[in-house]
């Protein structure tokens, strides 16, 4: 059994001087490699899962200090200002979220997104969707925190790369729910547009 990242035919790459097309040999993964990738996916999912517990609802207080740091050390011009006028709007103090008007609803969105990533990667359920969401969340962390004091610049870079890796490979199709879901969505995708779109995310 082999896994390919796309159901499409392999593209022809490279052209010789004579104008002949040479097709690159398709890459297939062995069962062991596929299961190894699935284990990697599960542990990355567990990484996200663990990070839910220091910013639990209803206050999400653990997140506050990080949002403040992001607003002060973001590498993207204007990103700090954006945070100050959204997450930190109306906050009377930089040490506690008490009194902030928008912090709790926005922090709830972040927390929920991280929960979705964790569930998606742990269970291999719409894994590529979870990995895309993880990429966005990691990029946001990279922009905000990479150059803040005490941070190793590769920490968030590695998070981004791990997430991108899981977007590229269908890691949920072994040891995950996508194993059951993928063939069904691909079959249904021949007749239903929604199923075809959903099949991109497994």
């Amino acid at each position, binding site marked *: *059994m082999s896994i390919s990242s796309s159901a499409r035919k392999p593209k022809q790459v490279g052209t010789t001087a004579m104008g002949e097309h040479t097709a690159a040999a398709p890459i297939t993964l062995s*069962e062991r490699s596929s*299961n190894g990738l699935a*284990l990697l996916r*599960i*542990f990355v999912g*567990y*990484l996200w*899962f*663990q990070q*839910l*517990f220091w910013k*639990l*609802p209803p206050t999400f207080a653990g997140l506050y200090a990080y949002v403040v740091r992001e607003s002060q050390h973001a590498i993207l011009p204007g990103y700090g200002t954006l945070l100050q006028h959204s997450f930190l709007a109306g906050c009377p103090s930089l040490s506690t979220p008490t009194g902030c008007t928008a912090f709790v609803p926005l922090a709830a969105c972040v927390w929920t997104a991280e929960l979705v990533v*964790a*569930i998606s990667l*742990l*269970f*291999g359920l719409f894994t590529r969707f979870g990995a895309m969401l993880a990429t966005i969340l990691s990029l946001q962390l990279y922009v905000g925190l990479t150059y803040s004091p005490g941070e190793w610049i590769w920490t968030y870079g590695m998070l981004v790369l791990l997430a991108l890796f899981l977007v590229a490979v269908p890691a949920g199709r*072994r*040891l*995950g*729910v996508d*194993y*059951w879901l993928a063939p069904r969505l691909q079959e249904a995708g021949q007749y239903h547009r929604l199923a075809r779109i959903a099949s991109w995310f497994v």
Partner: protein
Amino acid sequence: MQALRRGLLAGFLASLVLAMFDFVTDGAPGNGLPSILHWFGIALADPTLSRWAGFFLLIVLGGVVGLIFGALQRDKLITAGRALLTGLALGVLWWLIFELVLTNIMNHASSPFSLSFGRFLSSFPLDVLFGVLLGAIYVQWQERHAAEAS
């Protein structure tokens, strides 16, 4: 017999993944493993011994649940959907028995079903994951053996 053996091995492997999570935890590796002994009222004074005993008990419990999974299949070839659903159900049962009822009884909680959001979140998804892994490993093995046999 084939289903029982496959279930047993799938149970061992699924619980091994669960045990490995405890080696990437805060504090010291294996910090959460003594709580498995606590489900049965066992407490060991030596922390290292306690962690290893918890680890082996988890693997054994995983094997037992895997045997139950295998027994439920009655040596028939099952679909991936059925394997995942049966695994999921066993994962929920694992959570209900060990993480909820036994933990509450051993902690002398007011009710065997008392639960906080944090405790639910930290235990339920991982126990369900055990079940899903059990089902997934089982059905992958079944398909591999079927492919080899044909």
